[in-house]
């Protein structure tokens, strides 16, 4: 098995003390100058979880075996839980009276800030698992860095989510190895999935003005710093899986973080948002 990054326990006691000291008053939450970037960045965090969570949930009831079906549904549930926390904070920072549900269900595609990688259709099990692995390896490093955020609110969400994402990475890397180094058929499918998804992975590390602003404030890490960590995990797992890292550029596709999406996102939103669009304010 690959040696996964060491999942060091965040210093939870210090974290709790900081959160308590802040008394729910995170200095960044009320920072007017930072607000547009902080809000946009929180939407990126929330939308990544929401869109991937929704995609994975599409497998519910369709998994190849019962255990996989349950694992996928559990993973989706974790991600939707993270979405509630990130978009909840985004709504608070925005201060316009919206809540997490309104951000999720009443924004149009161009307002979504998720990575393009995450909105691509599930394809076969190989595409689903490879996508999850490529993102999990990044998500894990990002959340680890965010537990040290200058924003206590961001740090506590990251510490909570990191525990769950550790399970996600463990499972997806394990399956990439087993299927990559499996039968001729599973190997071919995993390699094809990797080749297809590879050009979308660079967007995770492509920083723009929003990323620069939150990094400058100490809220989030510089994305470039996460790249070598991600590359190391990916290289080790792919090697173990007998899969070959594509030679093509990994950053050919981008724009999702700025709201320029593939056509696929619209179809996700049509399904996900239908109820609140058709029956505004419906609850049960």
């Amino acid at each position, binding site marked *: 098995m690959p040696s996964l990054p060491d*999942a060091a*326990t965040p210093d939870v006691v210090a*974290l709790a003390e900081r959160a308590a000291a802040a008394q729910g008053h995170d200095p960044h939450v009320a920072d007017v100058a930072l607000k547009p970037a902080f809000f946009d960045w929180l939407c990126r965090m929330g939308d990544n979880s929401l869109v991937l969570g929704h995609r994975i949930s599409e497998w519910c009831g369709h998994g190849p075996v019962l*255990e996989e079906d349950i694992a996928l549904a559990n993973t989706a549930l974790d991600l939707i839980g993270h979405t509630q926390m990130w978009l909840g904070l985004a709504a608070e920072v925005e201060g316009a009276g919206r809540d997490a549900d309104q951000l999720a269900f009443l924004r149009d595609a161009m307002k979504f800030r998720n990575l393009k990688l995450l909105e691509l259709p599930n394809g076969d099990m190989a595409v689903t698992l490879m996508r999850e692995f490529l993102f999990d390896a990044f998500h894990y490093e990002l959340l680890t860095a965010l537990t040290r955020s200058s924003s206590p609110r961001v740090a*506590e969400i990251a510490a*909570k*989510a990191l525990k769950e994402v550790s399970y996600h990475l*463990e499972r997806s890397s394990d399956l990439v190895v087993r299927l990559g180094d499996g039968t001729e058929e599973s190997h071919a499918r995993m390699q094809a999935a990797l080749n297809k998804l590879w050009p979308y992975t660079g967007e995770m590390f492509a920083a723009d003005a929003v990323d620069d602003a939150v990094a400058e404030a100490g809220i989030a890490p510089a994305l470039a710093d996460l790249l070598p960590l991600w590359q190391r995990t990916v290289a080790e797992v792919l090697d173990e899986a007998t899969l070959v890292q594509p030679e093509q550029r990994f950053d050919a596709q981008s724009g999702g973080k700025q709201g320029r999406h593939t056509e696929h996102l619209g179809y996700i939103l049509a399904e996900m948002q239908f109820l609140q669009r058709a029956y505004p304010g419906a609850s049960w």
Partner: protein
Amino acid sequence: MTAVLPSTEQVWDWLGEVPDPEIPVVSVTELGIVREVRWEGETLLVAVTPTYSGCPATSVIDLMIETRLREKGISDLRLERRLSPPWTTDWVTDAARDKLRAYGIAPPVDGTASDGLMAGRAARLSGRSNLVIACPRCGSSHTERVSQFGSTPCKASYRCRDCLEPFDYFKCH
């Protein structure tokens, strides 16, 4: 006239009677998810932490806590969701571990959480783990993991290789 407020110890006792909706043999206090009970003037604050972020039981638990305390005459009540420090299975009480076992769920083994020590993690990943998850039915340590995800977010699926029964393991977190 100022009403006499129930002591926080009394409130803790009442909360000890609120069962987890998914695993009703253990209470919310035994699971370690009630983090604080405090009077703020005449308002009772109860801080609850989620087990898993997406756990659908979270809102049901809040509702059950609120219902229970209102039954006891507390009308001025504030429930707070507290994220840090994040919940860990290390907070599940010893009494609750026995109840879980009797209910057919293997209780968590401390120190094996996914964010635990690298050595334990590597051993588990490589299948060389010496971690013993005993079968809650027959007690055999001859068990195997079927999936690290189970019937609820907090459980993994195991199988006993002696009595052949599948069972849930309350996984470490």
